[in-house]
């Protein structure tokens, strides 16, 4: 199994979720996160004082999938979250050793 982690623009998350559901992904963990990449932050001005805001708000989506689905899921995220402008985010894939469904004790793929 693989863990697909995507950090994307907040306004793209609905599109990504719809596309993943259509593909057959049954669940995911979503969190509001902040950070920065090459995009860096932005500047805000309050009463004339400029503030460098280093962190940019993003959505982090985490999905555990069967090995064979990982590339497709990555493709879907890229296709739906892409705007072509700086700050679109990142997707990465990492191996997962085991998954257990807490309710039933089902393991691995049958727990997804």
């Amino acid at each position, binding site marked *: 199994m693989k863990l697909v982690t995507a950090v994307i623009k907040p306004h793209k998350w609905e599109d990504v979720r719809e596309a993943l559901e259509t593909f057959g992904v049954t669940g995911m963990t979503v969190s509001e996160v902040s950070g920065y990449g090459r995009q860096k932050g932005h500047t*805000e*001005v*309050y*009463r*004339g*004082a*400029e*503030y*460098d*805001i280093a962190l940019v708000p993003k959505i982090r989506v985490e999905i555990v999938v069967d090995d064979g689905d990982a590339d497709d899921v990555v493709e879907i995220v890229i296709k739906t979250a892409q705007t072509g402008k700086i700050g679109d985010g990142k997707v990465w894939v990492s191996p997962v050793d085991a998954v257990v469904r807490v309710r039933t004790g089902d393991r691995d793929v049958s727990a997804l």
Partner: protein
Amino acid sequence: MDGYYAFMLVATAFVLMMTVPALALFYGGMSRSKSVLNMIMMSFIAAAIVGILYVAVGWSMGWSGNGTFFADPFALVMLNGVETSDYIYVMFQMTFAIITVALISGAIADRVKFSAWVLFIPLWAVLVYFPMAHMVFSCTDDSLICGRIGAQDYAGGTAVHINAGIAALVLAVVIGKRVGWPKDKMRPHNLTLTMLGAGMLWLGWYGFNVGSIVFGSTFEDDPDAFLQQFYSETGRTFANTTLATMAAILGWLVIERLMHGKATSLGAASGIVAGLVAITPAAGAVDIEGALAIGVIAGALCAVAVGWKFKLGLDDSLDVVGVHLVGGIAGTVLIGFFSTSEGAGGVDGLFYGGGTDSLVAQVLGVLVAVGYSGVLTLVIALAIKFTLGWRMDEEDEVGGADLSQHGESAYDLHTGVGGGVKSSVVAGATAAAPNTGART
């Protein structure tokens, strides 16, 4: 007369609303989320302490008779000797004392022990505000600013705004800057609160300015003259208050747009306050053009002035100096240029053919207010610094004034995680009982 009395009941409640909650929200929104409750509490506690003190000695120090600086503090203690039918005028003046003290708190946000602020409030009210109210508002012949110097101050440019502004400057210097300022980001945490507060301040200010009418004759002596003044002067002060504020919003936003590229909501909220501050002393003295001029000048000037603290290294956290001191001085001095003899003061300013007499009186009034308040505030500030001490522990300050001073948090944004009501306060609960899953 009935109409005037009913109007004063409303005006007084409006001015109290300016502190509780308008100013508290205005300041609270600009503070950081970890100290917003403390910021709000600084206004609320000022209302409680100053209000009671005002009845105890404040009214007596202001209105019991003659005096250059103040009148007999004990003649009307606890309003003994004041007719109940006059209580509303006491209450009206009380609300002015309350907001003046509360205004100062914005300069020392996030870092002052609540106990130090509680000690400062009565000292400053009795030694600085109550005398200043006598010097300006009671206007006995020998009162310093109104009687002797003859400066015009309709509703408190000197007594309220310059007074609070210079006190804020002194406290910011004595108490020092917040840990991490100006390197750390200390941007406003909730500008919707600030916008709401600014709007409510504007509303309340009609009580503040329009309610400050002083009659030349009593209704019993000359009903016609009384009513004529009531109608014409309240119309003038209402219109001037409105138009100066509108002009100040535009003045502030234009400066912002030119200097920083964006017209901001905080700029609009600040422009509202700057305009209201500047028109406060001038509300009765000027015509429509004068009000517009004072508003736009004050808005633009204050928009520039709030940047000075960074050059001076002065952590006047919420810009009490840049808005109230600068705006108060602007409004008070500009009366010397724009005053019209048709107004409440009956004096022409420099631009209305009246020469420099008015201007000189206005500048002198400013200097006395700055000098008196500045020196006495410094004495009080140093006295507290070397006894109780002003500052929280650094750890308390960094952790947030809400938690360290009040044991509370303003916002619970993460529900469902951690904690519950301590078992000691829940009837029948046993301490730290493990969850056995049993339904008891």
